[in-house]
Structures are given as C-alpha cells and as structure tokens.
C-alpha cells in the first residue's frame, strides 16, 4: 500500500523527462504563436530561408547546370553578348557586369560570405558578452569593476574606424572582420545589457532556493543564470548579424577586404561601371546586390524584433 503511494508521488526519471518535454513543447508552441502574431517576423523567416537556399544553390548549380567558364563569379566570361555590361536576358537573369560575369551567380556566391560574417560575429559577440556580463553581474564588487572597466573602454571605440585602422595593418578577410566586430560590439554595449539582466535574475527567488539546497556559485551560474540569459543573448545575436553584415559590406565597398566577391564590392564595381557607361544607365549590376544586403539585414532585424516581443511580455500588442 505505502509502496504504491510513494511510487505515484515520485515518478521515475523517464516519466520526469517525458513531462518536462511536454511542458517545453507547450511553451514552445505558445512562444511560436506570439512569434507568428507579428506578420513581419514571418516575412523575415521566409527571407532567411531563401537566403539559406541561395547559399547551397550556388555550388550545386555551378557543378551541374552552369558552365563554370561562363558562370564563375570571379573568372567567368560570356562571349555571346558582345557588349558588356549587358541587360537581363534568358541566360543571365540579372544581366552581366562590366567584365562579362553573371550578376546572378555573384549574388548567390555573396550570400555565403554574408552568412559566414554574420554568424561568426554573432557567436563571438554573444559568447564574450555572456561571459563578461554574467560574471560581472553575478559576482559584483571587484569583478564588476574590472570587467565593466573594460566595457567602458570598448564602448567608446567607433567600430568602422577601428576596422579601417586594422585594415592597414593586416589583410582583413571575412573571419577577421567578424571577430573584430564581435569583440567590439560584444564587449561594449551588449556586455552592459547582459550584466543588468544578470543582476535582475540574480535577485529572483529561485536563485535563493538553489542556494539553500546547496548549490555552489559555479552550479548556479551554469544551471540557472546562463540558461535564463540565453533568450536575451539570442536576440542580441540576431541583431549583431545586421550590424556585422552592414559593416562588412561597407568595408568591402571601400575595397579594404581581401574577399573579392561580396555584395559590397559588387556595388563598388557596379557603381564604377555605372560611371563609365553613364548614358546606358546600368542599374542591373547595381540593384541586385544592394537589394540583397537590404533584404538580408532586414530579415534578421525583423526576426530579432519578433524574438524581442516573445521574451519581453510587456512589448506584446495588447
């Protein structure tokens, strides 16, 4: 009799896991509904998905349908239309640029670079800001003074100028830009925001409960503080992607990078070509990359804003 009662009161580990999964799933569905209620967020997700397809489409197309001699983003040349740049046609959806290369292929190729820059920068920034902000907010005192002192310095740095300065020193590629951008933005404003969130989490009752039941500092940090910081960190990661991609495009527009085929450098080339062929008005080499940058950044931005609505209940449309 007593045996069965205790069994009913304390479910086994497997049952606990199942219940937890169910609760998490319900929570996810609820959050998904809030996320979907903002119509812009759906557009953003679809756009990100499309850009993801573009990343994988380019190598597949180059290996199967497209002739690499014509469609290679760097070295391709189409001898068929005699005058380059040529307007959109059946072979070249966005036409060709001044050197006879296919613009559509270049746009597809540039998506890879932008995704890499954005994601690398976001990972760097979020890792650094979670570590710095979490430690400073949790321990306080000397750690706070030291870590936030570093933050105070980094918040003063104008990112673009620091990147231009470093660009004289080393050859910047996408990884260097992403990591430097991640360090500057992660240690600057983001760390301060994460710190204030940590301080508000630290004062909640469940932290006291964990401490009473014997949890050490490290356990509380890894099992309670950081999981609760993750939603905030995710929003910041998504917003960092926007800034990183815009900065990278600007740098490659100024031809300060050593990745020669990105959306920014395409705009630079298209603008040069535009000046040479001013009368014909070659918009077709210029608009696709610019539109790509804008749509890519706004997609991430809209998703970030919708995530912000999800984690911050005060923002939901009432």
């Amino acid at each position, binding site marked *: 009799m007593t045996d069965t009662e205790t069994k009913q009161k304390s479910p086994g580990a497997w049952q606990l896991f199942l219940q937890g999964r169910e609760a998490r799933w319900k929570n996810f569905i609820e959050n998904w509904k809030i996320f979907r209620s903002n119509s812009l967020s759906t557009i953003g997700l679809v756009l990100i998905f499309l850009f993801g397809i573009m990343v994988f489409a380019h190598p597949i197309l180059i290996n199967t349908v497209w002739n690499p001699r014509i469609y290679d983003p760097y070295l391709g040349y189409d001898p068929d239309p005699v005058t380059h740049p040529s307007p959109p046609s059946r072979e070249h959806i966005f036409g060709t640029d001044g050197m006879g290369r296919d613009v559509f292929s270049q746009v597809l190729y540039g998506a890879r670079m932008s995704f890499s820059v954005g994601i690398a920068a976001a990972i760097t920034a979020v890792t650094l800001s979670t570590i710095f902000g979490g430690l400073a907010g949790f321990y306080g005192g000397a750690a706070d003074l030291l870590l936030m002192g570093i933050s105070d310095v980094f918040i*003063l740095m104008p990112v*673009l*100028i620091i990147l231009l300065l470093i660009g004289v020193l080393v050859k910047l590629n996408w990884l260097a830009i992403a990591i430097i951008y991640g360090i500057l933005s992660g240690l600057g404003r983001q760390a301060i925001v994460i710190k204030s969130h940590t301080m508000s989490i630290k004062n909640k009752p469940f932290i006291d409960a964990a401490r009473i039941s014997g949890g050490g500092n490290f356990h509380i940090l890894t099992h309670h503080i950081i999981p609760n910081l993750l939603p905030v960190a995710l929003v910041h990661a998504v917003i960092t992607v926007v800034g990183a991609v815009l900065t990278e495009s600007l740098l490659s527009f100024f031809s300060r990078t050593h990745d020669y085929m990105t959306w920014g450098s395409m705009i630079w080339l298209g603008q040069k070509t535009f000046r040479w062929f001013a009368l014909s008005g070659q918009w077709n080499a210029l608009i696709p990359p*610019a539109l790509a940058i804008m749509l890519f950044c706004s997609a991430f931005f809209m998703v970030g804003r919708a995530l912000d609505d999800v984690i911050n209940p005060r*923002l939901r449309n009432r």
Partner: protein
Amino acid sequence: MARFIIRRILRGVITIVIFQTLLFGLIQILPYDFTTFLVLQPESRRLAQSELGLNLPVWQQYFKWLGDFFRLDLGLSYIAWPTPVIDVLAGRVSRTLLLFLTASILAYIIGIWLGKLVVWQRGGWFEFNFTLVGVISYTSFAPFLAFVMLNIFGYYLRWFPYQRLIDHNVWYMATVTPEWVITRLVITGFISMSLLFFLSWFSQRFNKKFTSWSIRIWGTLLIALGVWGFWKLSGQGWLAVSILDHLTLPLVSVILLSFGETMLLMRTTMLETIGENYILLAKAKGLPSHIIRDRHAARNAFFPVLTRLVLNLPYVIIGSLAIELVFNWQAMGVIVFQAIEFQDIPLLMGILSLVGIMALVGHIILDILQIYLDPRLRYNEVN
C-alpha cells in the same frame, strides 16, 4: 551623490587613458611610419623622422603624447605640416555639423513623431507599412542609397546640383571663404532651431487653441524674418542659398538612413509605457486621444530615446564616410580616412580622443542623470 560623481569622473579619466593606450598601441604596430610616404634620401628621411619625433622610443613618444594631451595640446598634423591638429579639425568641423548634426536632429524629430503615431494606430496597415519603412531605412546600404539619390534627383531629374560643393559659377566673385558662409549657416540654423523648440514648448502652456496657434505662427514668422534679415545685411545670402542647394540631397539621404532606428526604438519604449495604469486612468478621465498620446505616453517613453541621442551624438563628429565619399562632401570622415592612409598619428589620435572624450562625457552625464532621477539606483550605487 557627490561621492558618486567624483568616483564616476575618476573612473572616466582611467577609462580615457586606457582607451588612448589601446589606440596608440594599435597605431604603433602599423608596419610603416609617415616618412615612408615622402620621396626622400635615407639621411633626409632620418632628419624628417627626428623633426617629427618618430625616432624616439615608443614609450617616450607615448608619454610625450599623453602629457601633451592632458595639457590640451594635440600637436601638429603631419599631412598639413605645420598646421596644429586643432586647426585642421576646426577647418572641417563646420561642414560636418552643418550636414550631420542637422540631419540627426531632424531624423530624431521625425523618428519620435512617427514612432508615436505607429504605436497609437497599432494593428492596422499604418503600423505594418511604417514599421516596414523603418526597418528598410535602418538596414539599407548607405552608399547605394546616396548613389540612387544622386542619380535620380541630381542626374536624371536635375532638381538639385550634383557637382562639387563650391560651384565656380557662383563663387568666382565671392569675397568670403566657404567656411565663413558655412559657419554662419550653422550658427543661424542652431539659433533658429532652438528658438523654434522654445516656441513649441512655450505655446503648449496655453490651453486655448487660438492663443497657442497664433503664438506659433507669429513666432515662426519672426524667426524667419530674423534669419532673412541677417543674411540680407551680410550680403552673402546668394552663397548661402547655393550651399543649401548642395546640402539638400545629402541631408535627405542621412535622414532617410537614420530615422528608422529612432522610430523603432520609440515604438518599443512606448509600447512598454502604454500598458501602465496611468494611461488607463487618463482614458477613464475622458481626455482626448492626442493628449494622452503626447503628454502621458510619449513623454514617459522619451528617456530611452534621449539616452540613445546623447550616446550617438559624439559619433556625429566623425560623420559618415560613405555619405561623404559619394556626395564628395569634404568633412571629417574624409580626414579620418586620409589620416589612416598616411599614418598621420597626431591627427588620428586627435580625432579619436576628441570623439572618445565626448562619448565619455555623454556616458557620465547619463549615469549621473539616471542616479538623480531614480532613487533606487542611488541607494545601490552609493552604498
């Protein structure tokens, strides 16, 4: 309170020293120095190096620079030898302020106003479209937007000039320098803008619609008359008109690029205030909708937006390199670019430390203001 302010300022001084050290180190590890760019014999190069103080050990250069910096002496620029850095910057600051400060203030006004409207009419086509416009404005690529504006309104439609700022057809018989005109444009612009702000604040104190509107209209007319009279008396009005004509396109581009950020921020903060109880009370009292919006919801949502403005204003000094290059607006951003290219250490350090100090002062002021406004923070910080 006083203890907190002193501690915050001391921390600020330490911060600025570390900031300078990092930047100085960054510049020092660049693989060449300024004399590399001069075509010189080896011994003349050595002479030039000793003239500029580049042959000293790095730590001596650093301490010399730091000492000069705290004595408010930024040294001589290498590019424009022997002009002091301060003078090089002062020659360009009026152009930067005329374009970027005006643009950012206008963008903030437009952004706050649109954000207010978007929140107030939420859930319809208005909110959807304007949020979309804000996102597009925030994420569009600056050089491309500038290029499109230049081509459509300058080249195709010919509404605005797209050639150089100093149009020779206008300026060939001018008796003053362009800087003279631009500086006075900035000054008159700011005096009239602050008078307009004062007017709008003053006219809100009158509850009668007729009184407030007549104050607004007559005040605006008086300010316009004053500005017109100033330029009429100085006799250089036609030059100012030429400069304003050239200013329009870059100004509109910068506003288009930057109003979205403010609008979205205003929307976010106002959505937070709109659920508060005092809004409900104001509605229950039967106040008109626009008064609840302007005096109760927007005013309480204003502080975070103001914070962003104060934090962003120092970077206005650097301007936007992309806009300046496309419109050929020779202001501060182009100088920064040249200083980086030719490793003009004093000029670069001068600009960056100026920006750093301004940003730091902004941060300190905001911190003190926050502590002053929120007693809970005061307790936490001081004790």
